[in-house]
């Protein structure tokens, strides 16, 4: 496993320049604003808003750009990301309070997207050029062309407006009262998990009901990409000689696919995980907005319309860092699954 360790070390070193680059890019975007406006990046409490000129001087916002960058970077590394006007709280606190809300959607939507995408791709490849293949491909290309915000609206109109099944928001009023009561113990901030730990079935069901539409919306738009990769990688594997050998030995077709081909065909899907993380982050911005699921994405979208730029830039920086690390994990996984990679 020595090769693996050097590979990981090398990959870790490689992300440093990218992360620095991302921070420079975000900082450069912020320079579009005047020094007085940028003071908002350094304020940590509402009180700070009265002393803008002092902040401009203190953080050298009238200094040359490169000096400002270092002051800003040090601030960011200390965890001070400025003040979010749209929420009237510091950006770092907003992150702390909002992350479980978005994570709750993402941990359901991510795996579901992969599973459904893989299954669709498998059906499509096994029945190549037959009806199931055509249907699956049509579904995928439609999903790929769907505006996420529109599918969300249609889902809401049908399943809430007409059928009253799955309401927007995070919890109904009754469940909200339970959650806000002193007996409720907050473990993670994820209502489904907290409900289990508090042994409260009502809140659990209510939380799931509210999660249903946002998750479905992300899944139907997102699994198209996975399906496409799965289909082509399965088709490629199926044309290889070991498959022919297995068939010639008389291995049943089901076994050939389940035991021989799937394992190899899944490797390229692993590389899609990075793309999936990026998709989930943008998808959350839109989905949370439509379903009024007030997590990080909702906050980012609303901050943008109110030109609350410390929030928008912090969110962009955050998604950049998450994406970079997601890709790192993907690469390591990939190298683990396919030993040829780490020798390069």
């Amino acid at each position, binding site marked *: 496993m020595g090769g693996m360790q050097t590979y990981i070390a090398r990959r870790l070193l490689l992300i440093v*320049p*990218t992360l620095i*680059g*991302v921070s*420079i*890019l*975000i900082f450069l*975007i*912020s320079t*579009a*604003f005047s020094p007085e406006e940028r003071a908002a990046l350094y304020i940590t409490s509402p009180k700070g808003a009265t002393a803008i000129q002092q902040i401009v001087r203190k953080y050298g916002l009238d200094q040359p750009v490169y000096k400002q960058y270092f002051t800003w970077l040090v601030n960011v590394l200390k965890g001070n990301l400025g003040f979010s006007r749209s929420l009237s709280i510091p950006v770092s606190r907003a992150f702390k309070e909002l992350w479980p809300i978005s994570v709750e959607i993402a941990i359901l939507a991510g795996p579901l997207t992969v599973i459904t995408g893989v299954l669709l791709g498998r059906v499509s490849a096994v029945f190549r050029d037959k009806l199931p293949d055509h249907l699956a491909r049509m579904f995928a*290309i*439609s999903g*790929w*062309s*769907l*505006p*996420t*915000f*529109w599918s969300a*609206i*249609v889902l*809401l*109109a049908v399943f*809430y*407006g*007409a059928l009253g099944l799955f309401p927007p928001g995070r919890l109904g009023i009754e469940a909200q009262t339970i959650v806000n009561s002193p007996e409720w113990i907050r473990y993670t901030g994820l209502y489904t998990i907290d409900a289990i730990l508090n042994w409260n079935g009502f809140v659990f069901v209510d939380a799931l009901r509210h999660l249903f539409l946002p998750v479905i919306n992300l899944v139907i738009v997102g699994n198209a990409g996975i399906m496409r990769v799965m289909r082509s990688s399965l088709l490629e594997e199926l044309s290889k000689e070991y498959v022919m050998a297995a068939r010639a030995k008389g291995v049943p077709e089901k076994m050939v696919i389940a035991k021989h081909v799937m394992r190899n065909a899944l490797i390229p899907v692993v590389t899609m995980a990075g793309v999936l993380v*990026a*998709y989930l*982050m*943008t998808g959350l*911005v*839109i989905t949370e*907005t*439509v379903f009024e699921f007030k997590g990080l994405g909702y906050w*980012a*979208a609303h901050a*943008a*319309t109110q*030109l609350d*730029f410390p929030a*928008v*830039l912090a*969110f*962009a920086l955050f*998604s*950049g860092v998450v*994406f*970079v690390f997601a890709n790192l994990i993907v690469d390591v996984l990939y190298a683990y699954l396919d030993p040829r990679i780490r020798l390069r």
Partner: protein
Amino acid sequence: MVRSGKRIERVPIRERAWFKELVFTLRRIRESPLSIAGLIIVAFFAALAALAPVLAPPQPGRDPFMMPRHGYLSEPKPPSKDLPFGTAERQYDMFYGCIWGTITAFRVGLIGAGGAFLIGVTVGVISGYIGGLFDDVVMRIVDIIYAIPGLILAMAFVVAFGVSLDNVILALVLVGWPTYARLSRAGALQIKQEDYVEAARAAGASSFWILSKHILPNSIFPVVIVATLDMGSMVLTAATLSFLGLGAPLGYSDWGQLIAMSRNWILGKAGNPFAYWHTYTIPGLFIFTFVLGWNLLGDAFRDILDPTLRRR
């Protein structure tokens, strides 16, 4: 050098490689039903955009992109004889908005993809050809832009530059060019090792000559295709930004904005949950079909142009 080069190259168009490729590609498109469907959809929207002044004549003296209003009530009106698509919130004419919105979509897609293409190809080809430090720096920048999800970076750009449709297009270009840079760089790297480039260099051709006469024409074809595919996703991103309130100004003919206007009316009236179905369904179908058309076309292109599959 320039003159003599031109004289040598006098080959009839029918005999040239790029022309043969084009004919072959067009023949393959004709054989694939999905790409035909895509072509029809795109042609339909192109016709809508071209006929917009006839289908939805603007009032003289007004900005044709601003939707006319039919009254001042907040509540949308359902489709009727006079108003085929009904009205949106605050009585904006939905038919007018959807038709002129087609021009907006084409403008966003064409300028967005076109701008990204121009910058990306120029930077990419030069980067691949000269290599060295310049190449390293460019590829680092590409990595950095790739490191932030596109829509989120575009959002940040629009917030920084100011909310307007032009800035949305600018943001799309800034987010989109790295894709083209990567592709054309890869092409340039491959072609600069070809014997004919070596020969041209040995004959004393300038870098500019080699870039513009050998590398660009021979590496650009796949990049052009990617630009076509990008039309759909560019329009989708722009519509999303508009929907979030970061795009066209209020009343501008824009599909994303029309859907944003429908948000207060999604749940309908008591007893009639779909009372305002038209406010979100119609503009949504416009975006969906438009993007679908480009994606169908793109999907077919990918199969046709994939060198490992195309000649089978």
